[in-house]
Each structure stands twice: as C-alpha cells, then as structure tokens.
C-alpha cells in the first residue's frame, strides 16, 4: 500500500516550504514598505495567506480528494491543459532554482567569496535530486528531521532581549513607508509555499485534518515571522533597518556565546535545511506537472532533465541583485498562481458539478 501523509507531516511541510531565504530580508522589506512598526503587517499577511488557504480548502472539498491535474484535464482536455502546465512548470521550477541561487549568493557574501557559485548550486541540486526521486512521502519524512534540526533556532531571539527597547518601536503605526504596495507584495512572497498543497490531495491520508494542518503550518510560519520582525524592529532603529540588506543575518552575527562568537556562518548553514525543502518542493511540483505531460516517461528521468535545464537557466542571473529581480518577478507570478489557480479550479469544479447534475 502506498504510504500517505498525516496532518502533522503536512503542517511541518507547509512551514518548511514557506520559510525560505526571504526571511533574512523580511524585517527590511517590512520597514521599507510600511515604515514604523511595519512588523504589524506580518500577522496581516498571515491572515491573507490563511484566506488563500481557505480557497484551497474549497477546492479540496469540491474535488473530493481527486488530483488537481485530473480536474483540469477533465474540463480542459489534456491538450488544453498543457499550456497551463507549461506556465506552472516554468514558474515553479525557476522559483526553486532561484531560491537555491539566492541562498548560494548570500552564503558567499559571508564565506567562500571566490568559489564559483555554480559549483555550490550544483551540489545543492544534487542533494535536491536525491530527495526528489524518493517521492513526496519520503521528502516529508526528511522534512520532519530537518525541522527538528532548525526549530531550536527560534530560541536565539532571546539573545536580543537585553538590547531590545520598546521606545524604539515608537507609537507610530505604519508611517513613513515607501512603495507600500510593491514592497508589501515582496514581503508577501515570504509566505508563499502553501499553494503547493493543492498538489498533495492524492497523497493525503485522511480526509479530516488536511486543511487544518495547512492552516497550522501557515500559523507557525506567521508566528515565527512576526516574532523575528518584532524583535528586529525593537533591536534596530528604523533607519538602520532599511539600510541592511539582510537584517536577520546581521542579527545572527550579533550573537555571542560565552565560548565563541561570530557563528553566523554556522547558523546560516542550518537555514540550508529549510531552504532545501523549499527548493525540493517547488521542483517536485513542477515534475508532477511534467509527469502529466509525459505520463509514459520515467519520473526520475524527467526530474533529472528538468534539473539540468533549470541549472542551465540559473547561469543567466550572475549577481545577487539580478537573482533578486528574478525572484521578485517569479514571486509575483507565484502570488497570481496561488490565488488564481484555486479560483480557476473552483469555477471548473462548479461547472463540472452542474454538468453532472444536468446529466443525472
């Protein structure tokens, strides 16, 4: 019997997909976009993500556990669904690959600046490939252990308590921000990842608890993001926060243990696990779509080909800021997919249902 995912797997998986590289710049993005007390928007974003998950919940209920691809193909026909698949594959696989490259570039600002970034990228892709070919159940099992390896890092926030000052937060609410909408959209990309649960329908064990688990994962992300941002806003002055590229990294470098300091490189290494899951799941999602287009092909081969192709594409942006521009646009695309795809699916399902009722 095929092994299935339990709610706890789903919750942790959602949290791990959501937590990616954007978290390092999140406090800065919030400060730039919303100004004083920008951290307050993080819970709002969590709520927006939760509403979006609500859409997915409707799809889940209407589809009765059928795969999203099945639904699409039933209404659009196989050929009709292909262009959509193609878009999904391009956005998802590139997103996964740019997240990897972004991580490599940030890592290189701290260590190994003269190494060729694509060598790092290659190694990450190999790890991703090994996880990928084992299927989503095993990915989620690995996710559980990676979660344990990284979850304790939330405690590091305690180091900032002595320098935290409420007076620095100011009573101004969301004042002094610039480019609020674009910046806000950028900040929202930190929450992306929950939409991949659309593809998990056939792999879920019980009908009950699936959507609750997705909400739980999103809530965990939201709570941790809020804490990070809140602490950053009371630890740094607003002007300072907007000047840092990766405020969370600077915060990590402030931590000093009695026996060692400057261990941010090590801590940043731990974040690799959460980033790896983000990468793997986006590429997993695109191989799922690819599999629908080439049902006869070996899925391992498809994954390998996909990884090789996007490895080639990832040579294109060759600086950190170029990668960030790619990520920004892919992020916008993904926001549209995250909202648009469930809405589209709901429409299809409603039409299908009406047709079926008409026939009956």
């Amino acid at each position, binding site marked *: 019997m095929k092994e299935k995912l339990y709610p706890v797997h789903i919750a942790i998986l959602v949290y791990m997909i959501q937590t990616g590289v954007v978290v390092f710049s999140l406090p800065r993005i919030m400060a730039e976009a919303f100004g*004083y007390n920008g951290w307050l928007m993080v819970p709002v974003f969590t709520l927006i993500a939760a509403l979006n998950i609500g859409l997915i919940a409707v799809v889940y209920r209407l589809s009765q556990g059928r795969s999203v691809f099945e639904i699409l193909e039933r209404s659009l026909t196989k050929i009709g669904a292909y262009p959509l698949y193609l878009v999904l594959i391009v956005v998802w696989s590139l997103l996964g690959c740019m997240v990897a490259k972004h991580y490599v570039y940030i890592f290189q*600002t*701290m*260590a*190994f*600046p*003269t*190494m*060729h970034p694509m*060598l*790092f990228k290659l*190694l*990450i892709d*190999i*790890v991703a490939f*090994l*996880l990928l070919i*084992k299927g989503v159940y*095993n990915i989620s*099992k*690995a996710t559980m*252990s990676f979660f344990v390896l990284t979850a304790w890092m939330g405690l590091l926030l305690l180091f900032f308590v002595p*320098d935290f000052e409420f*007076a*620095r937060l*100011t*009573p*101004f609410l969301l*004042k*002094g921000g610039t480019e609020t909408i674009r910046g806000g959209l950028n900040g929202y990309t930190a929450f992306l990842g929950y939409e991949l649960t659309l593809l998990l329908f056939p792999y879920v064990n019980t009908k009950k608890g699936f959507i609750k688990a997705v909400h739980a994962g999103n809530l965990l992300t939201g709570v941790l993001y809020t804490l990070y941002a809140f602490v950053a806003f009371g630890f*740094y*002055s*607003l*002007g*300072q926060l907007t*000047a840092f590229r990766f405020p969370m*990294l*600077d915060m990590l*470098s*402030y931590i*000093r243990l009695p026996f060692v*300091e*400057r261990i941010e490189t090590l801590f940043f290494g731990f974040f*690799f696990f959460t980033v790896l899951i983000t990468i793997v799941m986006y590429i997993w999602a695109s191989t799922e779509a690819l599999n629908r287009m080439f049902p006869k092909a070996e899925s391992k081969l498809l994954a390998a080909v996909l990884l090789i192709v996007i490895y080639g594409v990832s040579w294109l942006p060759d600086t950190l800021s170029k990668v960030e521009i790619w990520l920004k646009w892919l992020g916008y695309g993904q926001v549209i997919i995250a909202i648009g795809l469930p809405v589209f699916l709901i429409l299809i399902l409603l039409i299908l249902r009406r047709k079926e009722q008409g026939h009956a």
Partner: protein
Amino acid sequence: MHNRLVRVAMIVILLGVLAGCGDQRILEKQGFIYSIGYDWLAKGKSAEGSVPGNKVKKDQLSVTVWLPVVSAESGRQHPLILQTVASTGKEGRFRLAKQTELSLASGQMRTALFNLQLASRGIMPYLDGFMRDPAVSQRLKIVVVDGTANEMLKKEYPSHMNTGPYIDHLLEKEVMNNRVPESTLYSFMRDYMDDGVDSVAPIIKQQGTHIEASGIALFDGDRYISRIDSDQTLIFAFLKGSFKYGEINIDLADQERKGEKAMFSSLAGNSKVKIKTLPGERLYRADISIKIHGILLEYLGDLQLNMESDKERLEKAIAAHINNEAESMVKELQKLGVDSIGIGKHVRNSLSYKEWKNIDWKAVYSNMDIRCNTKVTIQSVGKFEK
C-alpha cells in the same frame, strides 16, 4: 530510507568539504587584526610611515593595526604593529596588506580607534566600510582616542604584554561599571540612524605607562562635538536609563555640608522620562526621574547613620547633589545641541507621526525645559556602624 539519509548527509558534508578547497584560509598565514586605529594628519606635519623628513602635503590619514602573531619557530605570540599613510581608510588597508607576508583578516577585530581630530571630521566613511564588510563583527567597539591611536597601539605597557586585548578588556570592564557607555558598531549605527538620539563613544587616553578611560565622546551625527569628563560619566549613566554596578564619590560641599564626603557603591537603578506638552514657545517639558540605590561604603561627616532620620537626611543630600549635577549636564548637552540621552525618543513617542515630522527637533531640544528628579536609597551602610 536509512541509506538515503546517509547519502543526503554525505552530500551535505561533501558540499562543505569541497567548498573548502576553493577558498583556503590557512590559520598560520592569516593576520587577524585585533585593533585598528585611525589618526588625522593635518597638512604640513611629518608623519610616521611616510618617507622620513617628508612633510604631509595634504590632509591625510594614518592607519595603524595591531595584531597578534604566533611565530612558527618558537610558538610564542608577539604583537605586530603596522602603520601607513593613506587618503582613505580602504586605501590604508590596502597599503598595510603590502607590508606583511600574512593576509590581513578583519574577522577578529575588537576595537576601532579614532583620534579626536579625525572623529571631529566624521567617522562615517570608516564605519560604512565596516558595515559593508561581512567579516567585521557587529560588536566591534567604536572608541575615541585622546592623543593618537598610533602612539597608543605602538607603545609597550610594562604590565600589559598585549596592547590590543588590554584596551579591549579595559573597555569591557569600564562599560560593566558604567564609567563609559557601551559603544559597538551595532549601537553606534543604531543611534546614528535613529532620529531621536545621538551616538556616544568612550574616550581613552594614554597616561604614562597605562591607558585609562577618560570620558565620553558626544557625537552629532558622525562628528565628535564635545566630551563628558570621567568624573561625570556615572551621572550620564544615571540619565541614560537603567544601570547596574558602579560607584560614585560624592562631595557634599554644595549641600551645605562642608567637608562631608560619601562613597556610594554597588549602585543600581533606572531613569524614566516623561514628556508634557506645554503652551507657548518651549513646547515640551521632560521630567527625568532617576532612582538610585546602593551601599554606602565610606562616609566622612557628622551624621549618625545608624539613626533612620540621619540616614534619610544623607539620602536627601546625596540625591540633591546628584540632581544638580544631572541638571547641569542636561543643560550643557542642550547647549551643545546633542541629544545623547535620547530625550527625542520619548518626545517622538508622545507625538503623532505628523507632529514629529513637522517639528525641528534640534531646535526644540535646545529650547526644552528638562528637569531631573532624583531619589536615592541607601540600602545598607556596610557591616560596620559607629
């Protein structure tokens, strides 16, 4: 499943190991800068590091680094001091690197010293470089030197083998005792970029065969403006917020208790700022209430400290003395136009965003009515009562 995890783990290890081949850093070939010092060289003065006898033709910068080096033969550690003249900080680093067989690394840098002349011209160009460089710690101490950083780092101190750690540890202890405020790259930049507070840094001075903390440097933006002398620094700590540790010698002559002296130790307490809006030109009033408690370790005077009423009289006299000092310090700061205590943060927090953006804070600050209200509690008078 087990095999797979092992394989993934192997790849992760491989990732680390392979990467190491590309960017090698061999410990013995690294020179870890411990202290870096910047001095201003005015035009026309002769400088070390330039050709002897040659006068500096334009305003320049002298950069000195102090680093510990372990000799390969004896295994002993000895200090290495390098110095050069340059027009920018980065150029200085570049020139210093040429003077040694070691590759200079800034990952272990603990103190950055700026001499007064340089600090009064602004230290942001140097801090900017530190902020950009991911190797430089956020805990790097920003220090102002009365004299020249070069001489301070070069000099040998008989009882301290290593000047770099000597300065670093001295500062840590002084900060702990609240004789100077903590000033790291993080905190300096934080206050520099905050619109409601100005940055401060400790001043150190070479005194014969030792170095001592000689006061607090007050900055307006990134420029050194003035200083608080070392006998007044604890008053500054009282004003700045919560504090722990520290001791103060009090001469009660100004409280009509001529010849009476008290030594007050193990001090702890806090200060709170309240802002009131006033009608008229002065706009705002700040009330700083300071609460201090501690142990009286020495008292020369007529009061009988075993009597509660006398103890209270002494408490009041000490409080009045500290209050006077605090108020005159605040007045001085207002006159200088530097808000080193951070009154601005509290004013900002009592206003709406629009009001805060519309006031000219510096002008309002200089004109503000700021009052102190000090309360002193003598917790104990030691283990001896007369």
